[in-house]
């Protein structure tokens, strides 16, 4: 608890938390929202394609969008760290925060499996998709949606009111 308190009392944390500047809390959270939209959006696009939407859209070239997904992810990792330390005693003691982290970890493992086993499969656009591919797409969607929901609910269960 002492450590969390010290994190929260850093000058930087106080500035993020208490500054009325639009570049402090609002901008960090804005970047967190955009990063979420990019990462989850691209992942959801690929997942839903695998699940049968836009069946004539070739899947293999969609791997090209994955680096952008990672940019969204790293933006969120960085802004996420800032948001967490700014409010360390509340976020790091909030069980919902750990639920969110678990779902993000699962989503990333899932993404790796999906890329290696589905998108990089040379036969992917030639044969019907396997049940395993569809299962991976469905779990990917589920993990991201769960992460968004857990993240949003942090505001309501023991978090800071951020709108």
């Amino acid at each position, binding site marked *: 608890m002492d450590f969390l308190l010290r994190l929260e009392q850093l000058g930087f944390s106080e500035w993020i938390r208490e500054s009325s500047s639009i570049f402090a*809390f609002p901008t960090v959270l804005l970047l967190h929202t955009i990063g979420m939209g990019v990462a989850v959006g691209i992942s959801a696009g690929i997942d839903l394609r695998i699940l049968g939407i836009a069946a004539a859209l070739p899947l293999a070239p969609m791997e090209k969008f994955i680096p952008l997904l990672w940019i969204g992810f790293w933006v969120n990792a960085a802004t996420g760290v800032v948001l967490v330390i700014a409010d360390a005693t509340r976020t790091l003691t909030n069980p919902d925060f750990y639920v969110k982290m678990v779902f993000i970890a699962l989503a990333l493992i899932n993404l790796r499996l999906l890329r290696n086993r589905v998108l990089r499969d040379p036969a992917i656009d030639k044969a019907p998709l396997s049940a395993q591919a569809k299962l991976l797409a469905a779990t990917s969607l589920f993990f991201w949606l769960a992460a968004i929901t857990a993240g949003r609910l942090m505001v309501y269960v023991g978090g800071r*009111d951020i709108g």
Partner: protein
Amino acid sequence: MNPAHLHLVLNHFPTIGFAVGLGLLAVAIALKKDELKRASLVVFFLAALITIATYLTGNAAQASLGNRTDLSQAAIRTHEGAALWGFVLIEITGFMAWLGLWYFRIVRRAANWNVAAVFVLGIVTFSVMTRASNLGGEIRHPEIQSEQEGAPPDVSNVPDIARSIGLFVRGHSWVWPACKTLHLIGLSLLLTVVLMVDLRLLGMAKKLSFAALYQLLPLGILGFGMNLVTGMVFFIASPEQYVKNASFHWKIAFVILAGINALYFMLMEEPWAVGPGDDAPGFAKLAAVSAIFLWVGVLFFGHMLPFLGNAF
């Protein structure tokens, strides 16, 4: 120009837009002209887009007229209830027209099911809306009331749909967080399509043709629909947060511009000629950059609602 003025300007678009759209569609069906059907779908789409602003400015007008004793607050409330039903029907028609425009691109002709649905919805909507318009007119023009009625009817006990929704949202603590979460999911779905389609035009994943990627559009329509519904829940439950919030006005202006931008991709041939491996023409790239700019702008102003304004 105050919100009441703006509402008085914008309130003509739904009725006139639907009248023109229905007229065009009737002629198009009679003459079996596909391009004319398409033109009427565009009219319905644009009318539905502008109606978002019409409805929202109505609440702003109501707020700015709230202390006027010469106007019947009951008449304003009846108009609001009728307008909300009209709004819902207009948006459903608009989404159907959007789907029709997209389908037009996929199969290169109008789909009968879609034209029939838009036509029927258009007629029902138009009649509901005419009532809303008349009720709106009665707020300031008592002379258009029929003579038998005499004094404005007492409507204080009439169930008021907007108020009921507001009470429901405020009475159930789970509704607001649930809608906020859905709003984030809708945003992600919409960004999926915006990013994939527009970044392709800008040079990413060039092996995919524009037409192949644009099959994802229904996802974007779904995301936009989710956010329109959940956004309206926030607005109806707590209009005071939004009607005087400059950030909100910008957000809505950007939504309308982004909707007009979406028409470019639906109507123009240029982007559709971009095949696998092709470089997109300059104007298509410009449209792609503006699409990303406008949607990120919508996200920006939505996000800044609590910080630049007074929303929570």
